[in-house]
């Protein structure tokens, strides 16, 4: 409601509660309002209203409002949901382990070529999902690097771009840059003297990792893991390009919408997907107390 007031710019009293009376060197409430107006208008017209409408669209489905439950009741959708969840969770775990080690290593050591390695690792940050899919084909497709090497070594082409391993590799490919950046950011904040203190107290290397480094990185790992998970849940381009027979949820939504014109179901599934990712990010914020900043995530 307050937002509506803001948009229409009428009710001064409630507005001044938030924007204060004009103090010295502080813009007037009207100015603040004018500054926010374009952004608020765009978000209201093209995000909030469509969001409400798509939520209502579900009611036009075969089961009315119960269409929302279709993701749980329909075996195919449910299976797709489980597959997507498993896939995303698996990619998140692997990415966290790999990037945790590598990110920490890159922060704590200085050597020739370090910045080149960082540059290369973060290169795919804004590759669209389709390009990532194509990268997987380049790596593990019929003309791929892995196939070429295995052909030379054992006389057999190993091709896995088009099955679940390929999809996994693709998800990993676009997760690595994001997670590495997040891990490095929180590793930079980790006081190296903490490690030295633990060592001075006699702690061997593995205990330093367990007692000091991991607890210190944990907030960063949790929030980057959440972002990684959320991105994987919504990833569409990679699966689309690889045209796998694994039905990840975004692919199911796409098929329902375009091929079957099943708009209500597509809307219900979209909302379910949106709620899951949003819940995941919010839970992390609640857990870690700091923001899982989605703007470090880029498109996939």
């Amino acid at each position, binding site marked *: 409601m307050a937002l509506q007031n803001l948009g229409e710019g009428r009710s001064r009293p409630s507005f001044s509660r938030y924007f204060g009376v004009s103090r*010295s060197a502080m813009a007037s409430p009207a100015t603040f309002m004018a500054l926010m107006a374009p952004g608020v208008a765009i978000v209201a017209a093209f995000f909030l209203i469509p969001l409400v409408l798509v939520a209502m669209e579900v009611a036009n489905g075969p089961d009315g409002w119960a269409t929302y439950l279709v993701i749980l009741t329909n075996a195919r959708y449910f299976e797709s949901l489980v597959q997507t969840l498993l896939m995303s969770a698996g990619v998140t775990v692997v990415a966290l382990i790999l990037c945790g*080690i590598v990110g920490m290593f890159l922060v704590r050591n200085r050597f020739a070529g370090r910045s080149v390695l960082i540059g290369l690792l973060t290169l795919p940050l804004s590759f669209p999902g389709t390009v990532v899919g194509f990268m997987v084909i380049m790596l593990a497709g019929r003309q791929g690097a892995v196939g070429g090497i295995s052909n030379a070594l054992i006389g057999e082409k190993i091709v896995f771009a088009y099955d679940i391993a390929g999809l996994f590799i693709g998800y990993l490919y676009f997760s690595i840059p994001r997670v590495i950046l997040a891990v490095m950011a929180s590793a930079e904040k980790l006081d190296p003297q903490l490690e030295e203190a633990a060592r001075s107290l006699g702690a061997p290397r593995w205990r330093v990792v367990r007692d000091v480094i991991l607890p210190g990185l944990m907030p960063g790992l949790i929030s980057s893991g959440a972002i990684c998970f959320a991105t994987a849940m919504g990833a569409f381009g990679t699966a689309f390009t690889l045209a796998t027979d694994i039905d990840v949820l975004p692919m199911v939504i796409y098929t329902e919408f375009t091929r079957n014109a099943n708009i209500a179901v597509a809307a219900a599934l979209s909302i379910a997907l949106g709620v899951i990712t949003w819940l995941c990010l919010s839970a992390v914020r609640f857990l870690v107390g700091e923001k899982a900043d989605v703007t470090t995530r880029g498109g996939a």
Partner: protein
Amino acid sequence: MRRGWPFYAQLGLTVLLCLFIVVPIVMSALAGVTVNVFKGLSSGLTLRWIFEVWDLYAQSILLSLWLAVACLVVTTLAGVPLAYVLVRRPNRLTRMFEEILTLPVAIPGLALALALLITYGGFGSFRSSWVFILIGHVLFTMPFMVRSVAAVMSAMDMKTLEEGAASLGAGFWHRFLHVIMPNAMPGILAGALMVVTLSIGEFNLTWMLHTPLTKTLPVGLADSYASMRLEIGSAYTLIFFVLIMPLLIAMQMLANPGKKRRAALQPAEDE
């Protein structure tokens, strides 16, 4: 500094991960200039595929560039003032708005596209114009601009700056244009690079929003992967890389301008 086996083990893993990222990029770039991928590099190098891509997809490439510029203009004009308000007036209302603002990034692009289609899909001429895609891009990239600018703004003690300017007699708009904007420039620049890069690469939303006449670069890419020979897909990917690499490199350089930071394990000699 003595380096034991853990150092080399970790270095090995880092290099492996790097190869995982880079090998397909290099392979695809090479495939884009190879006469026949199935025969390999020995078949010779050629620019033929690049020209062919240009013939087929020039329109979509140009549209993507145009969209990126338009998206940058809109997100800057709307986003910079938003960032200013969010930093200068942090309260429940503005925080809630910030939350809503970042939602389009958090929820899958497919869902957002669906919502836009259901709401505005019926307006024929709007639906089929490039503005429809622009809206999707603006929603998706705006949070990046706002966050980036807000980060710089909150780091620079804007209150004091503004009070200083006001004490010299500068009115609000004068302060905004001549004090706030110039000082927020690093954030605007970083945000701008991010917005352009993301807009050029956006696929999830655009695939749903596009029409045959409003294909963007990534849409064309998906199309070429599905229906063209491997060399053309590769050549097209190469063009995409060439477009996006300078932006990514600029972004990395902007992110760590001072490479003077000393080695973390080297003693910070006597503060």
